[in-house]
């Protein structure tokens, strides 16, 4: 299983039947493929609907996801305007949001929307999502392309939100914030605690129940 698929498969296990979920672009969009058949979630798309599904057949006019790509919709979909979309997001009506991260730190801070002087795409809906969703799951590769740590003592990049992250899933490990403390709860198959320690700058504790991820074949 490659890194992205492993992360998506692990995050899928965090979602419960009936959850309302907003998935960021990229890796998080793989997650629905790994949901058990008895777990049905409702996907929120911040450009204005609940009930997003995969594209099936010809695209329908004006039916696009928040990345502007043609998508589908399930029976019982509801469209609304941007104020309602973010009333739903900010108001705690989204059970989980899954986003990529440039950096996350041991205080639960997330940085994922700009690199000063280099890449300033804007925050889009990310700041509201991270502030408002009940669970904020960061799904990202454990280290930068250069091997640098992304799970830090303190984010250096401008924050998306302060202290809102509830879990981190990487191809090496799964962490959860428990009472404000970063806790390693699972390791990826074949990954040692030492490897995780070496590639993680943040202070964290290893859960007494820490175990290997239980992933689909």
């Amino acid at each position: 299983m490659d890194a992205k698929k492993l992360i998506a498969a692990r995050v899928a296990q965090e979602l419960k039947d009936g959850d309302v979920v907003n998935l960021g672009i990229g890796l998080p969009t793989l997650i629905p493929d790994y949901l058990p058949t008895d777990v049905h979630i409702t996907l929120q798309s911040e450009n204005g609907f609940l009930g997003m599904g995969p594209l099936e057949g010809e695209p329908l006019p004006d039916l696009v996801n928040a990345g502007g790509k043609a998508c589908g919709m399930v029976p019982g979909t509801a469209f609304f305007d941007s104020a309602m979309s973010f009333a739903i997001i900010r108001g705690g009506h989204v059970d989980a949001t899954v986003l990529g991260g440039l950096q996350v730190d041991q205080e639960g801070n997330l940085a994922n929307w700009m690199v000063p002087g280099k890449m300033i795409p804007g925050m889009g809906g990310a700041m509201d999502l991270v502030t408002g969703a009940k669970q904020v799951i960061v799904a990202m590769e454990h280290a930068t392309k250069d091997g640098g740590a992304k799970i830090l003592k303190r984010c250096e990049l401008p924050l998306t939100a302060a202290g809102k992250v509830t879990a981190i899933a990487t191809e090496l490990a799964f962490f959860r914030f428990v009472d404000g403390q970063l806790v390693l709860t699972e390791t990826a198959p074949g990954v040692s605690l030492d490897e995780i320690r070496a590639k993680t700058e943040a202070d964290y504790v290893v859960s007494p129940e820490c175990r290997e991820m239980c992933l689909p074949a």
Partner: protein
Amino acid sequence: MSAPSKRMTHADLRPKLKDGMSIMFGGFLAVGTPLGIVQEILDAGIKDLTIIGNDTATPDIGIGRLIAARRVKKVIASHIGTNAETGRQMIAGEIEVELVPQGTLAERIRCGGSGLGGVLTPTGVGTIVEEGKTKLSFDGVEYLVERGLRADLAILKAHIADEKGNLVYRRAARNFNPLMALAADFVAVEADSIVAAGEIEPDLVMTPGVLVDALILSGEC
């Protein structure tokens, strides 16, 4: 779908009804108020309620019946003039009444349901409504900071619902219902008809189903 159905009867609501709870009710002079759910609340015998809505209708209709039956400890509303019993109990000191300008009430409920701490409104500046409130001035205009409102339970009336809880309201019965759907811990809806998911055109849904916890057919009292 394996998700638990939202369909229930009025009687199924009983475990959610508790003394001292706060209840937002849709409706404007009872138009848009779920009358069967009000009956269920009366039958449940719960008391010391805080009720939040536009008005208290009349003593014999809609939410006004809870006032007449002395189940209410506090009212947050924009108008109580149509229910003489509300005024009488207020002047006698038997209930507390917080009067809120109608547009401000709508915004406060919307804020409570939208994760917003409040809004800045010019309504009420220079009147007794401003007493005790934070005021901010921008560009020479004074605003009151009006805070969000939430409730334990919202009781709403829809014309059509689908099995997922998507709602369509009819005419002037919409009023506060869509706002309250956002602002309560448990949202119970009484609908004139309940159809299969997908039967309401997605563009025409007025309240998305994910906001709704319980769906009750109007006739099933």
